[in-house]
């Protein structure tokens, strides 16, 4: 510390006093925190809102639609047409839309069907084949804008303009005129319900549509289709018996034939009426050589060696590759037919004598070329009662 300056001299007391003053200034500043020198910049009112992807089915905010085809509405001449339009709500974002239908009752194979998408034919074949087509081989359905549905392969755009209208037309092929059994089944199965599930997924960040099946789409998979079963039952037991033909060497008196329904699990006689029969025991006054059982669309033949009491089931015997109308005369010669199982009464409606020998045996098989093939055609084939 120097005292040789030009009059600027600090003694110890002054120095201490000066330090103290500085300290006091600092303390004052610290106390008045609000008086600190500050500046503030606020980037305010920033906002983020999540977008939406919402399906619209015929204007309803839902992901599923049911189409019903009633036997009263279709025929050889009449088509039963159901149209559903799928799109995205106006405030939705563009999305990939998938649709899926499940194969149903195999009786659907007996009907012809055509799918038109926005007026262009996308599929012609049987109704069963159409459902197989809409199910996709893996149950993942079809992209709504896929080329198979006459689409451009792009995501669906929101609003009514982007909606895609599907029209399913169902009618009876003329071959059913000779097949009363199948017609009866169609009547029993009416109305045929077709459920179309739809799923939409944002297309942003999803450059390639992801099939809604396990392994390809981590966000969603369509629920598995119910296994297809027989009749209107729950399908767990397979097809129920609809008629039984006993083939005999000599004519049979229908009134002399008795039958009982057995429980397939316990083999006991079923007491009371049941709406479906899976095992039937028939007692005939004359020996039986073979029995043909029709269950669902399937015919099975079981050989018997002149037995008079025979037990047949909906699944036993040898599966026959025959047309649906085969049951009209399943035996080569004489026989008897327990016909037309009636769910309401739990009985066969009729027991009728068969005598097919005079008629030249069983009718010839239907030429399969006329049967629905389920092919995907770019244009309507214009056959089978096309009403244009």
């Amino acid at each position: 510390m120097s005292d040789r300056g030009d009059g600027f001299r600090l003694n110890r007391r002054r120095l201490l006093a000066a330090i103290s003053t500085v300290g006091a200034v600092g303390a004052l500043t610290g106390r008045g925190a609000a008086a600190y020198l500050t500046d503030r910049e606020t980037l305010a009112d920033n906002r983020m809102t999540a977008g939406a992807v919402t399906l619209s089915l015929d204007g309803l905010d839902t992901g599923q639609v049911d189409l019903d085809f009633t036997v009263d509405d279709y025929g050889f001449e009449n088509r039963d047409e159901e149209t559903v339009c799928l799109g995205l709500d106006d405030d939705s974002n563009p999305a990939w839309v998938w649709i899926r239908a499940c194969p149903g009752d195999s009786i659907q194979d007996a009907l012809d069907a055509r799918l038109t998408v926005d007026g262009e034919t996308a599929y012609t074949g049987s109704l069963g084949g159409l459902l197989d087509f809409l199910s996709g081989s893996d149950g993942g359905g079809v992209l709504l804008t896929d080329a198979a549905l006459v689409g451009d392969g792009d995501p669906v755009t929101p609003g009514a303009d982007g909606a895609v209208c599907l029209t399913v037309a169902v009618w009876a092929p003329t071959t059913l005129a000779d097949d009363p059994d199948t017609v009866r089944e169609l009547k029993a199965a009416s109305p045929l319900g077709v459920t179309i599930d739809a799923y939409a997924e944002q297309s942003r960040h999803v450059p390639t549509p992801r099939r809604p099946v396990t392994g390809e789409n981590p966000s969603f998979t369509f629920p598995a289709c119910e296994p297809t079963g027989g009749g209107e039952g729950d399908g767990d037991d397979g097809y129920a018996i609809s008629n039984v033909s006993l083939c005999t060497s000599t004519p049979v008196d229908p009134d002399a034939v008795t039958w009982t329904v057995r429980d397939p699990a316990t083999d006991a006689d079923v007491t009371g009426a049941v709406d479906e029969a899976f095992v039937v025991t028939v007692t005939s006054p004359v020996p039986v050589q073979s029995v043909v059982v029709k269950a669902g669309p399937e015919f099975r033949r079981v050989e018997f060696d002149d037995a008079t009491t025979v037990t047949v089931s909906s699944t036993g015997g040898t599966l026959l590759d025959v047309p649906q109308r085969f049951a009209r005369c399943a035996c080569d010669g004489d026989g008897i037919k327990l016909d037309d199982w009636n769910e309401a009464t739990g009985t066969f409606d009729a027991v009728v004598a068969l005598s097919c020998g005079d008629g030249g045996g069983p009718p010839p098989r239907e030429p399969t070329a006329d049967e629905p093939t389920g092919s995907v055609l770019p244009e309507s084939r214009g056959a089978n009662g096309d009403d244009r």
Partner: protein
Amino acid sequence: MTHGSPFTRRELLAAIGGVGLLAAAPRVAGALRPDPGFTQYTYAQTSGPDLRVAWYERYNGTRLEESNRFTDGGPLTNTSDAFNESGDAGRFVDVTGPNAVTAGPVLSIPNAHPGDEGLLLIGLRAEDADARAWLSITAYDFAENSLTEPERTAGDTTTDDTATDAGELQHHVDVTCWYDTGRFGVGGCNGSRDFSEEAVVAAGTLAEVSDALSGGVPLDFGLVESACIDAGTQRCLALRWRIDPSVTNVIQSDSVRLDVAFAATTCDDTTNPFGGGDE
């Protein structure tokens, strides 16, 4: 005391105390929500900190916003050179106060999807004097905005938009906020987090980050052992957000609002200007 004054001594003291309370009240409000009206003290302009900002915003890889448009400069890019040149050219701006540019919302995402990501890169410049920078991020106004059918299907049942935690979006936006300083001062302000950029201000969902930062935190850019930004220089803070692709329909149409506030104090001031914990 003047003879005849209507005030007794006690009344006068009470009145002074009332002034104090009035002054304190805005501070409390400011602590809860950064108040854009609370700006710099004009008498401190010459020697106090003057913070200016610049920003660059990217959304799903596309630039949406940048601040050089206010000063007729070439577009700001996500490089330290661009931020440094803009800073040296005086293109950093005030967004609050009398000289503020009309910035409007910097982040405006009206149609966010799962899989979206965005970046807000903010340059902070200490103009004239060294400054210590503080950050506050506050998310608020969470809203469900009614339930879409897919939201209901996804199990979303919240419909009360008056609830403080309405909607779900704030829990599904992942936010990382880090010092975009680059390595040894190189490669900063690029919005891409180098492995050497370990220092994170906050990371988590938007709700978590808001909880952590709404009270304000000091920023420490960690250069030359000083938390301060030297006068006439700028530093970058990066804020990256993302909605994971696995996020489901529960966020559909939900919305949030967000304030990003910065305050500058003098370097020796360790009092949190946002009212939260001090340095």
